[in-house]
C-alpha cells in the first residue's frame, strides 16, 4: 500500500465528508416524498470495502450508526457475488434495527474492476404495506407492519430486476412515490460512486486506502483520549416507559455504564423483555442510539468514521425489548430510545460533572388529525411536538425544542395549519413552570391547543408521564406531559395515547409537553436569573417562591429580605 502523506490524508478526509453531503443533497433533490426532502428523514454513507464508515450525512440523528451494519449484512449474505452496478435493499427490523418504513439501499463501488467501497442511502418510505395506511399504531407483531426484506438484490450489473420492482409496487399503497424514492436512493449511491472515481483517478486506490486507514486512526485516537480522560467507575440508572402502546403496565428500562481506561461499556441488563406493543427495537438501532448518546457527550463536533465508537462496547440481553426478535412489533421502536439516551447521558454526567446534562422531555409526542371522508375531502395533519431539555452544568436547558432522536422537524405554523385543515390552533405557548427547578433550570415544554372545526379523526402518542425528565445534582424533575380532551358535550378526558378515533366538531384537544430536568440546587440560582424567568414567563411568581425561595414583587423586583439567601 502506498503511503498517503498528511496533506493527502486531510484532502481525503474533507472529501469523504463532502461526498456524503453531495449524496444526501442528491437524495433530497430527487426524492418524491416530502417526509424525505422536507422532513429529511434519511441518511447516506460512504464506506470502505469492508463497510467501515468514511463519511456520512444524516437528517435524523438516530440514523448515526446503523447504516454500516447493512453493508456488512449484504457482504455476509452475497459474499463474492457482488458486482459492479448492483444495488441491494433491506428493511428487516431485526437485521437493521429500525421500523419497516426505513429502507436501506446499498451499492458496491468499483474502480478499475476492483471493489473499493460501498455507498448506502436510507430513507423513510411513506407506505410499506402495513395493515393501516402510513404508520400503524396498534400493531402487536411485525407481520401487521408491512413487507419485510432481508438483503435483496434489485439491480444486477446496472440492470433492474423487473420482478422485484413489481413486487415492491404490489406491496405499497403509494406505488409511484415508493419507486420514486427508491430511485432517489440509487441516485445518491451513484453520486458517491462518481465523486469517488474522480478522486481515485487522481490519487490512485492504494494511496486512498492508506489515507482511509489514517483517518480511522485519527478518530480512534481522539475517542481514546476522550474516554481515557474520564475517571474509571460504574454508574447505573433506570426509568419507566408509560406503557407499550397496547397495554397499561409501565415498561422498565435499565442502563449500566462502566468506564475503564480507554473503554466505555454499556449494559442493558434489567430492562424489560419483549413487549406485545410495537415499542420493541432491533439490536442495530439500539446500538445506533447508544452511539448517538455517546456522540452527544464525546467529541460531538467531530465527524464520524470507521474509527469512531471502537471505545464503546455494549451488552443487550437476548430477552430484551431492545434486542427484538421475530415476531415482536417494532413500528414505534424509537419511543424507548429517548429514555435510554437520557439514562446514558445521566451516567456520563456523574462521571464528568462539567459536561453534566439533566434529562429531556424524551419522545416525539405525536399529535395527528385526519379525515378519510371522500366527500368532504381527505387530509392529514401530523406533527411531532417540541418540549424542554435538561439543565446543564453551566447553562439552562433549551425550551420548546424537538427531541434528541429527531433533528430537523419543525412545528406547523398556525397560519398554515388553519389554512389547510379545518382545525383552529387556539394556543401555542411556553408551558410555564414545566422546566425542573435548578441552579440551571430545565427548559420548558409547550402548550398546543387544537379545536376541531369539522368532524374528523384524531390520534395521539405521548410518553414519559411515569418517568418525566429528572434533575441532576440537586436539580428538580421537569413536569411530565399532560393532555386534556374536552368533548362538545362538556365531558373531559385525560389520556396520553389514543389510537385513531372520531373527534366531533367542537372537540378541544390541549396537549402539553414536559419540561427538562433542572441541574444543581435551585437555591443557587441567581436572583437576576429568577426575576428574568418570571418576566419572561418561564417561571411563575408562585413557583419562584416555592421552588427557588425567591419572592418577586408585583413590579417584578426581587424582594431580597423576604427571599432565602443564595447558596454556592
Amino acid at each position, binding site marked *: 500500500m502506498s503511503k498517503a*502523506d498528511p496533506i493527502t490524508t*486531510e484532502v481525503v478526509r474533507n472529501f469523504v465528508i463532502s461526498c456524503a453531503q453531495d449524496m444526501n443533497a442528491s437524495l433530497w433533490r430527487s426524492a418524491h416524498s416530502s417526509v424525505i426532502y422536507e422532513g429529511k428523514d434519511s441518511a447516506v454513507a460512504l464506506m470502505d470495502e469492508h463497510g467501515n464508515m468514511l463519511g456520512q450525512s444524516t437528517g435524523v440523528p438516530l440514523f448515526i450508526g446503523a447504516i454500516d451494519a447493512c453493508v456488512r449484512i449484504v457482504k455476509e449474505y452475497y459474499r463474492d457475488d457482488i458486482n459492479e452496478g448492483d444495488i441491494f435493499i433491506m428493511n428487516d427490523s431485526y437485521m437493521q434495527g429500525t421500523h419497516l418504513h426505513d429502507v436501506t439501499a446499498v451499492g458496491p463501488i468499483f474502480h478499475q474492476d476492483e471493489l473499493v467501497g460501498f455507498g448506502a442511502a436510507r430513507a423513510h418510505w411513506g407506505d410499506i404495506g402495513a395493515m393501516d395506511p402510513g404508520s400503524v399504531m396498534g400493531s402487536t407483531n411485525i407481520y401487521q407492519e408491512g413487507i419485510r426484506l432481508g438483503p435483496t438484490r434489485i439491480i444486477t450489473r446496472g440492470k433492474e430486476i423487473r420482478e422485484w420492482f413489481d413486487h415492491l409496487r404490489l406491496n405499497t399503497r403509494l406505488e409511484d412515490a415508493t419507486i420514486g424514492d427508491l430511485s432517489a436512493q440509487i441516485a445518491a449511491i451513484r453520486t458517491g460512486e462518481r*465523486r469517488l472515481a474522480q478522486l481515485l483517478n487522481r490519487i490512485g486506490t492504494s494511496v486512498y486506502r492508506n489515507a482511509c486507514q489514517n483517518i480511522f486512526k485519527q478518530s480512534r485516537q481522539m475517542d481514546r483520549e476522550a474516554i481515557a480522560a474520564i475517571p474509571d467507575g460504574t454508574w447505573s440508572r433506570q426509568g419507566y416507559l408509560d406503557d407499550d402502546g397496547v397495554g397499561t403496565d409501565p415498561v422498565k428500562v435499565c442502563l449500566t455504564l462502566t468506564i475503564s481506561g480507554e473503554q466505555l461499556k454499556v449494559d442493558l441488563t434489567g430492562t424489560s423483555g419483549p413487549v406485545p406493543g410495537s415499542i420493541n427495537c432491533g439490536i442495530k438501532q439500539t446500538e445506533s442510539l447508544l452511539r448517538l448518546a455517546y456522540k452527544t457527550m464525546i467529541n460531538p463536533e467531530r465527524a464520524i468514521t470507521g474509527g469512531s465508537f471502537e471505545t464503546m462496547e455494549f451488552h443487550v440481553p437476548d430477552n430484551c425489548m431492545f434486542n427484538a426478535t421475530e415476531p415482536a412489533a417494532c413500528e414505534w421502536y424509537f419511543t424507548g430510545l429517548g429514555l435510554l439516551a437520557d439514562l446514558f447521558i445521566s451516567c456520563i454526567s456523574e462521571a464528568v460533572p462539567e459536561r453534566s446534562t439533566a434529562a429531556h422531555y424524551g419522545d416525539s409526542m405525536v399529535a395527528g388529525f385526519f379525515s378519510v371522508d371522500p366527500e368532504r375531502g381527505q387530509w392529514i395533519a401530523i406533527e411531532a411536538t417540541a418540549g424542554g431539555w435538561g439543565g*446543564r452544568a453551566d447553562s439552562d436547558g433549551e425550551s420548546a425544542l424537538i427531541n434528541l432522536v429527531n433533528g430537523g422537524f419543525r412545528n406547523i405554523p398556525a397560519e398554515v395549519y*388553519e*389554512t389547510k385543515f379545518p382545525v383552529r390552533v387556539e394556543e401555542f*405557548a*411556553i408551558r410555564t413552570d414545566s422546566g425542573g427547578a435548578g441552579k440551571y433550570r430545565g427548559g420548558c415544554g409547550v402548550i398546543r391547543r387544537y379545536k376541531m372545526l369539522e368532524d374528523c379523526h384524531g390520534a395521539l402518542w405521548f410518553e414519559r408521564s411515569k418517568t418525566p425528565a429528572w434533575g441532576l445534582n440537586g436539580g428538580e424533575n421537569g413536569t411530565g406531559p399532560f393532555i386534556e380532551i374536552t368533548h362538545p358535550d362538556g365531558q373531559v378526558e385525560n389520556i396520553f395515547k389514543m389510537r385513531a378515533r372520531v373527534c366531533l366538531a367542537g372537540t378541544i384537544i390541549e396537549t402539553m409537553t414536559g419540561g427538562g430536568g433542572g441541574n444543581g440546587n435551585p437555591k443557587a440560582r441567581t436572583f437576576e436569573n429568577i426575576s428574568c424567568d418570571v418576566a419572561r414567563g418561564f417561571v411563575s411568581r408562585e413557583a419562584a417562591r416555592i421552588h427557588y425561595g425567591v419572592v418577586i414583587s408585583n413590579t417584578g423586583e426581587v424582594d431580597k429580605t423576604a427571599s432565602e439567601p443564595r447558596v454556592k
Partner: protein
Amino acid sequence: MPTHYRVSADIGGTFTDIVYQDVNTGACGATKVHSTPENPALAVLEGINTALSSYDRIDFFVHGTTVGLNALLTRSGAKVALLTTRNFRDVYTIQGNNRGEIFSIRWNKPEPLATLEHTYVASGRIASDGTEVEPLSEVDLEVFARAAKTEGYETVAVCFLFSYVNPSHELAAKSYLEKRLPGIPITLSHQVSPEWREFERTSTTVMDSYLAPIVRKYLATLMNDLGTRLPKGQGLHIMESNGGVMSAKTATENALQTLLSGPVGGTIGGRTLALQTGRKNLICVDMGGTSFDASLIIDGQPSRSNETVLEGLPIQIPVVDIHIIGAGGGSLAWKEVGAVRVGPQSAGSIPGPVCYGTGGTEPTVSDANLVLGRLNSANFVGEMALNTDAATASLAEMGTEFNMTALQMAQGVVDIINAKMADAIRTITIKRGIDPRDFSLVAFGGAGPSQAAALAKELQISEVLIPVHPGAFSAWGMLQTDMQHDFKETMYGFWDLTTPDALTAAFAALEEKGRAYMLAEDIRAENIRFERGIDFRYYGQEYVLTIPVPDGVINMKKIRQSFDLTYDKQYGHSSPEARVEMANIRLAVIGTIPRPKNSSPLIIEPKPECSRQVYFDGKPRATRIIDRASLAIGECIIGPAIIEEGTATTLVPPEWKVDMIAGGHLVMKNKGE
C-alpha cells in the same frame, strides 16, 4: 464639456472600494481607501476626491452599506416592543422547534431581537379566511401603550395572526398607538411582509423595527454629508439585497432591503459579465481574508431566494443567494492527533497572518501563498510590507512533526484549502442539480484571482474569468443594475380552482403599487416593467418553487406546464397528473436606469515587466510578473505568469494561458484547449 461620472462605493469593514465610470465613454477606473467606520461617508468623500478631485460632475452615485448588518451582528439595534396575538406571545421565542446542530445537546436557539419581557399581547382573532372571530381589544392596546411609555421603547413591531389576509386589526392598532405613542415608529407585519407563517413574519417585522432607526440615521448623515455635494442632491442610491438599487430616500422606508447590500454587487457584476461575454452560466467567487462568498448565475440571471436567514433568524425578503464559506487568506493551519487541518478558524485582521507581523503566530493560507512566491512581499493591499521569513519559519515549524519542509507545508496548506473550497462549491451546485463543469468560474476579491486556476482544476472547470478591477468588482457590479422593488401577497388555493380573472386582478393591484413606487423614484413610466411570479407546489408539499408568469393574458395551462418543467429541472422528476396548489403571488417592478455601454478600462502607465521564482507543485519556476495595465485587448500570456494590479494578483500556472478580452476581462484556460 467636462467629463461626468457614475460612481459606486463598496464600504467594507477595512477598505472602501470606489469605482467611477465616464458617462460618455463608459470606461471605468477604481481606487481603494481605508474605511471610516464612525462615519462611512468620510471614506467615500476621500475616495471620490482622490479619484476625481471634485464632486460636482457625478450624475449617479450608488453604494453598498453594511450598517444594518453590523447593527444586527453586534446586537446594537433599537429597543423594540413586540405586540402580538393573545395565546401566541411565545411564537417568536419558540421559533421553529428544530435543532441547529443535531448531535449537540448544548445547542441554543438564536436570541430573539425582542425577548419575552418585551413582548405584549392583545385579544382579537382573525380566521384563515379573513373573517373576524374575536374583535381587537382596545383595553389591551391601552395596557400596552402605558407599558411602552414606562419602558421607553424606541420602536414598536405589531404582528397579528392572519394580518396578511385581513389587516384591519393591525391598522386599528397603529391608529390607536400613533396617538398614544407620538414619534415612536410602528412597523406592521402585513406591510413589511404580507406572507403567511407567523414566526417568519414576526421575525421579519421585528428585524425591520430593530434596524430601521440605525439605518435611517446613517442615511440622514450620508444625505447630509454626501447628498448635498452631488448636483441637485440627486442620484444618491443604495444597493438592495435583491440585486436592484433604490434611492436613499426610499431606503429610509425600507431598511430591511439594505441588509445584504454589500456582497450582492459582485453577483450583479457577474450578470453583466455573462451578458458581455456571451456566457450563460457562471460560478462567482469572492475571496477575501476570512470568508469566501459563492453565488451562481444560471441562464444569465442570478440565483435568488424569497427568504433568507441571518444570525439564525429568518427574514422574508427576496435576496440574491450568496453562500458564505469559512475559507480565505486568513484561514489558519493547525495540527491535531498527527494530522494537518486548515480552517475554518481565521486569523482575521487581528492577530492576522504571520507575515503581517501584527502578532499572528500560526501560519495561514496567505503565509503559504507568500512562501510559494505567489504574493509580492513588497506590494500588498494597503502597501503593507510582508514578512516572508516569519511566514517561512512558522510553516517550517509546523512541518517538523510531519518531516516536511516549509515549502512542502505551504503547498500542502494551499492544496487543502483549495480542495475544501471546491468541495463546498460542488455541494451548492449538486443541491440545485447543476454540474459545475458546465460553468465558467468568475474569481474576484483580494485573494480570488490567485486561487482561481487551482480551484477550477479541482472542479474540472475549463475556463476562469478574472474580471476588470477584481479587487473592487462588487463596486463595479453596483453600477450595472436597475431599480428594483418586490411585492407579494399570499393567495392560497388549488390551481384548478383558481380563475385567471382573480389572478389578473390581484396582479393588477400589485402593479398599481409598483408603478406608484417607481414614479416616486423619478423613473419615467416608459422605463417601468414588471416581472410576475407565482409560488407553486404539489399538493401536500411544504416548499414552493416560484414560477414566472409571462406578460399578457394569463394562460393557466401553460403556467402549470411551466411548473412541471421547472420542478423536473430542479428535482429530476415531476408529476403532471398531480394536483397543484399556489401559495403566494409575487411581482418585481423594475425601473431601468440609463447607463453607458461598458468599455475597456482606462490605460495607466504600466510598470516594467520583471520575473521571480514561484513554486508550482513543489518546483520553482522562473515566472514573468506582468502589470495588468500593460495588457492590450487580444493579448495572450502563456503560463507560468503572475499578473499584478493594485488590488489583486492573478496566478497563471504553467499549464494555463490567459487572454485579455474586450471589456478588459481576463479569460484563463488550459493550454491544451
